[in-house]
C-alpha cells in the first residue's frame, strides 16, 4: 500500500512540476518552433461581453481549435482593475512576462514566436466577428509565419544582396510581421533596421526634400533598382518623392505616373489606397484645370 501511494505521489508530482515551476506562457514559448508558433487567445475577462461571448464560442465550444492545429494554444485572461484572485489567475498564465507589443484590442488571437515576438494578430470586430472568420485569418497567419521563417532562415545563411532580397521577400509576406531582430541579436542590415523602424524611412524621405527634383528622381530610381527593399518601403520612398514633386510644381502627368507606380506596387495596401486618394485629391483637379484652360 505504501509503495502504491508513493508511486502515485511520484507520478503526480512529476506531472505537476512543470506547471508549478513556470508560467503557462513561458512553457508555451518553450514549445514553440519555427513551424509551430504560439497562438494566444487574449480576452477581457471581467469587463467585456464580446470577449465573454467569443470565449464561450472559441474555447468552451472549441470552435477555434481546428484552425490552430499545429500551434501551441493558450488562453490569456486580461482583467480590468483585477482583484487578488484575478491577479493570481493572470500570473498563473503570464508569470512576470508582458504580452507582446502590438496588440491593440481584446479579444484577439495573437501569433507569437518562441522569442515572444508578435508575428501576427487577428483583432478588431471585423476580423473577430466569429470563429470561422477569425480562425481562417489565424490559420493564414500560421501558414505565412512558417513560410516567413523559411525565408529568414535562408537570409541568415546568405549574405550581401541575396540576404537583403530574402529579407525583403520575408517583409512582403502579407499577414505576418517581421521579428524585432530578423538576423539575430545585434545583427542588422540597412533593410533589417529600416524594416522595423518607422522613422528610418521618414528620415530617408526628409533627406530627399532638400534635393532638386532631378536629384530626387535619381535618388529614388537608385533606391528602387537596388531591388532589396520591401513593397512598403518602396511605396514610402515614392510617397516622399511624390510629395516633393507636388510641393515644387511638378506637372500633373509626372505626378500621375509617380502615384500610379506607388499604387501598383501593392494596390491593396494602405499606401496603395493613399496613392489612389492622392490622384483624386491633387492630380485630377490639375488635369481638369489644364483641360479647362485649353478649351
Amino acid at each position, binding site marked *: 500500500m505504501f509503495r502504491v501511494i508513493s508511486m502515485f505521489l511520484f507520478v503526480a508530482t512529476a506531472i505537476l512540476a512543470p506547471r508549478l515551476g513556470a508560467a503557462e506562457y513561458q512553457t508555451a514559448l518553450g514549445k514553440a518552433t519555427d513551424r509551430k508558433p504560439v497562438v494566444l487567445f487574449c480576452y477581457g475577462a471581467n469587463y467585456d461581453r464580446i470577449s465573454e461571448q467569443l470565449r464561450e464560442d472559441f474555447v468552451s465550444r472549441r470552435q477555434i481549435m481546428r484552425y490552430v492545429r499545429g500551434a501551441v494554444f493558450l488562453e490569456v485572461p486580461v482583467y480590468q482593475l483585477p482583484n487578488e484572485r484575478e491577479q493570481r489567475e493572470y500570473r498563473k498564465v503570464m508569470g512576470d512576462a508582458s504580452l507582446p507589443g502590438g496588440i491593440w484590442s481584446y479579444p484577439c488571437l495573437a501569433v507569437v514566436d518562441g522569442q515572444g515576438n508578435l508575428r501576427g494578430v487577428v483583432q478588431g470586430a*471585423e476580423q473577430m466577428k466569429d470563429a470561422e472568420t477569425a480562425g481562417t485569418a489565424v490559420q493564414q497567419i500560421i501558414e505565412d509565419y512558417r513560410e516567413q521563417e523559411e525565408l529568414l532562415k535562408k537570409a541568415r545563411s546568405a549574405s550581401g544582396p541575396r540576404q537583403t532580397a530574402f529579407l525583403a521577400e520575408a517583409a512582403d509576406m502579407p499577414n505576418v510581421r517581421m521579428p524585432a531582430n530578423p538576423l539575430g541579436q545585434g545583427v542588422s542590415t540597412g533593410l533589417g533596421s529600416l524594416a522595423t523602424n518607422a522613422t528610418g524611412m521618414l528620415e530617408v524621405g526628409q533627406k530627399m526634400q532638400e534635393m532638386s527634383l532631378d536629384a530626387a528622381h535619381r535618388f529614388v530610381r537608385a533606391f528602387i533598382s537596388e531591388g532589396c527593399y520591401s513593397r512598403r518601403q518602396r511605396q514610402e520612398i515614392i510617397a516622399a518623392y511624390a510629395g516633393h514633386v507636388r510641393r515644387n510644381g511638378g506637372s500633373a502627368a509626372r505626378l500621375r505616373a509617380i502615384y500610379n507606380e506607388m499604387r501598383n506596387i501593392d494596390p491593396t495596401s494602405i499606401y496603395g489606397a493613399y496613392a489612389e486618394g492622392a490622384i483624386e485629391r491633387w492630380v485630377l483637379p490639375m488635369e481638369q484645370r489644364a483641360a479647362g484652360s485649353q478649351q
Partner: protein
Amino acid sequence: MSTNLVRLLAFVLAAMVGGYLVSWLYEVASAPSGSSPSRPVASAPVTQTPDASSSDSTSSDEIDTSQGVVIDEDGGVSMNDSDMVGMDVEGEDDTAWEGADDGDGAIEQDPNSYMPQPAPPAPLREIAEADVPEDPAQQVIPGVCPTARVRSIERNAKKLAEAYERLEKSNDGRTNFRSEDYAPDRWKQPDVIYKELLEKIMGKLGNGSDEAIWAFLAEPANRLDLARITLIRKIGYEGIRRITEQRMGSAMLFELTSDLDWINGVMYSGPTDRLGQGLIYLAAIYSRYSEDMQDPVARRIAATTATEFARERYSEADMLARFAYYFSSFQEGKLNKIFDTLQYWETRIVTGCREPSGWGSPQSLAWQRDNVRLPAEGYLGACNQLVYRLRNVAGDSVFSADYLGPILKYTRNTTAWAHREIGGVCGACSHYGAYGALAVGIPAMTMGEPGHCAYTVRVGNDWRMSYSIYWQHGMHKTFWGLHDWDFLILMQDLYTDRHKTVVSDQLLALAELMASRRMTKSALECFDAAVISQPLNWPAWVAYAAYLKQKAPENREKWQDYHDRVVETLAEKFHNCAATLLSRYVYPHLLPLVPNRRDRNKMFAAFFKQCDSYGTNRWDIGPLLTAHISGCPNTEEQLAYMKEALNVLMDKPEYSGAVLAWGLDYIASISTSTEENERLQEEFSELIVKTMSRARATRSTIDATWAALGEAIYTSATNGDRRTFQAIGRLAYRKCKKKFPRNRFRFRGFPGRIVSANGLIRTATTLSPGQMPHCCLHWAVLQKHGGNIPAKFEGNSGMTVELEDNSRLSGVVCLFGENARRDRDFKIEVSDDGQNWAPVRATCEVSGAVLRCDLRDASPSARFVRLLREGDKWESSVVGFYVYGKRLRESANTASED
C-alpha cells in the same frame, strides 16, 4: 510508523526533484535552437496594457486593408460595402465622407491652442423675487451659524443621505418612486402647475425651520414636487410651453416629472444651463424611442446626451446621432461593463463628449469601439497606437489638410482610423487615447497643457493622466467652466458622495425657492445648510455668495463666516478651488470690510495653514496672493503683507518657488513712473532677496531650495530683471555650490574683458517641469565654471544676453554641450534697448563644441547681444556664453584719465 513516514517524505521529496529535473530536461530539449530557456522577460503589471509603443512601420501593415478594397480594371482602388462592418450606427450615411470637406475637419490643432484660457469669473446671478408681501420676521440677516446648528445639519444630512442610499439599495440602485400627478395635457399650463406645487410645498415647509425642512425632504413625494418646481423655475413658463409644442413633448414631460429617479438625474447631476433646450432635445429622442424609454439606462443615456448637447450648443442632428450610437452600443453589449453602473453625472462626461463631427462622430467612436477594446487602464497607453509624426511619409505637415487628405476616402472619413494609418502628434495621440475610452463608455477627456495636448482616463474612481508633460492642465470638459485639475477631482469627490450631494442640492433648491418668495432669513439659513451638508458643492457656494451679495453685501459677520467655512472645509483638500472661490467672490466684498491689517493677515494665514502641499495638483497661487495684496490699502500694508506671505510660504517647500516667482512678477508689474513706486519696487526686491537668503540649504532641503531659487531666477529672467537674476544666481552659488558644474573650458577668447558675467541670459524655449528646477544653471552659463541652458533658435529668438552696461564688443564665444554642426549659419545682432535690433558684421566659426564670432571688424557698442541661427530649431544646450569687450563707462573713465 515514524520510519515509514520519514521514508514517505523522502520519497516525495525525491519525486519532486525528479519531476523538476524531467521538466527542465523537457524544456531544454524542446527549446528552439538559438534560444535560451532562461531568456529574461520584462516584468509587467498584472493587467497588461497592450504595449503599442513599438508601433513600427510594419505594424500598420497588419490592418487588413484587403477587406473592402477592390482593384479597378485600370489598377485603381475603390471601396465596397464591407468597410462598414462593425459600424452599425443608425442613420449613418454611406456617402457621409463625400459631402465633407477634404479632411480639413481632421487637421491637427496648433498645440498652443489646446490650453484653455482661464475663464473670467462668472457674474453672480441675482435671484428674482416674486411680487409677494414681505414678512418682517423674514427680513433679517441671521447671524453666524451656531456650532450646535452646524452639528445638527451635518447629522440630519447624513441621516437623510443614508436613507436615500438604503432606499436605492433595496430597489436595484433606484428609488423607483413614481407619482403621476400631472397628466401630459396639464403641462401646457405650467403656471397652474407651478402655483399648485408652490402652495403644496410652502404649506409643508411652514416657517422654514430646520425641522420642517428635514421632515419635508424625508418624503419622496415632496422631493419629487421640489424637483418639479425647480424644473419649472429654471426653464420658465415659456420654456415649458415650447417643450409641450414638440412632438410628444408633453408626454415626455409627464414621464420625466412622474419618475423621481429620472428627474433627479436631470436636475441634480451637474449644471442645468440651457435646460429648456436640453428638454427639447430630450423630447426629440423621446418621440423616436418612446418604447425604449421605459428602460432606466435608455433614460440615462437620453437625458445626459440631451442636456450636454444643449449645454455645449451642438445641433439636434448630432445629438440624435450620439444618442443612437451609445444606445445601440449598449443594447448590443459592446460597451465596457463600467458603463452599466455609471451615474448620471458620469454618463454626461461620456455621452456628452465633445467634437461631435470629428473624434466624437459616430463613425469614429464606432471604429474605436470595435478596434480599440481594452480594460480601462489600457487606454492610458492607447495613445501609443499612433505613430508620432509631425510630417507624414510624403512630407506633409500634420497641421495641413494634406496630412490625412489622401487617406480619408479609404478610411471613410473616420478620424481615429485615418490617424492610426498615418500618425499624428500630441493632439491626435491624446484624442485617440481619450476617445478610445469614451467610445466604450469609460469617462475620459483630453486636456491642454502649455504647447501640448494630454488626456486623462478614469480608472475606478481615480482620474489618471496620460501623455502629460507639464503640471498645468486645462480640462477640455468641465461642469462649471473652470478648467484646472483641482475642479475635476472636486467634481469626482462631490458626486462620489452623491447621496449627500443630492441632499445639498435639494437644500439649495429650497434656498432659491425661498429667496424667490422674499423669505430672506430662511433662504440664508437654507444656503448655510446646503454648504454645511456638502462642503464640496461648488454650485451651492457660488449661489450662496450671489445671494449674500444681493442681500447682505456689507455684512462682515456673514462674509467672514462664509470665508471661514470655505477655509475650514473646502480648502482642506481643494486648495485651488477654495482660492478661486475666495479670490473671485469673497475678497472683493470682505476685504474692504476688514480695516485692521492684523485681522486680514490672520484670515490669510488661516488659508495658508491648510496648504502644506499642493493638494490634488500643483496650482498657481499667484492670483490668490494678488487678491490678498490688492486688498491692502497702502504701500506700507502691501509690504507688510508681502513679508507675512513670504514668511509663511517660504517654509512650505512646494510653494516657495511659486511665491518667489509671484513676488518678482508683482514687482515687475508695478509702474515705475513715480518715485514712490520705485522705492516700493526697491524695497520689495530687497525683501525677496533677504527672504531667499534665509532659506536653508541643508542636505535634506537642498533640492527644495535649488528648485525654489530656480523658479525665481527664471521669473526674473522672464521679467528682464537683471539685478535680481544676478542676486539669485550668486545666492544659489553660495547655498548650493555642489549643484554647479566645475568646468575648465579651454578656448581662444577675444581682446578685452568678459562683459557678460554680470548680465542676464534668456533662452527662446518654454521650459518643461523637469528643466525648471535647474534654472540657476542659466546664470552659471555666464560664469567661468559654466552651466547649462536649453538652446532653441527660431526666427528672431535665440540666446539673448543683457549686459550690465553699454559696452564696445570685440567678440562672442558660445560653448555648446556637444559638437555643433559646422554648416550652421550663426549670426549676431545687437541692440541698445532690447527692442530694436541691428545685425552686426561678424565672422562666426564652429570648431567642435565652440562657436566663435569675431566682432572686431564692426566693433559695435551695445547693451544687448543675441545669437540667432536659421534652420532647425534645436541645438544642443549651451554650457558657456561669453561676450568680450570693454564697458563704455570704463572706456570713458580711462579716456578722461588719459
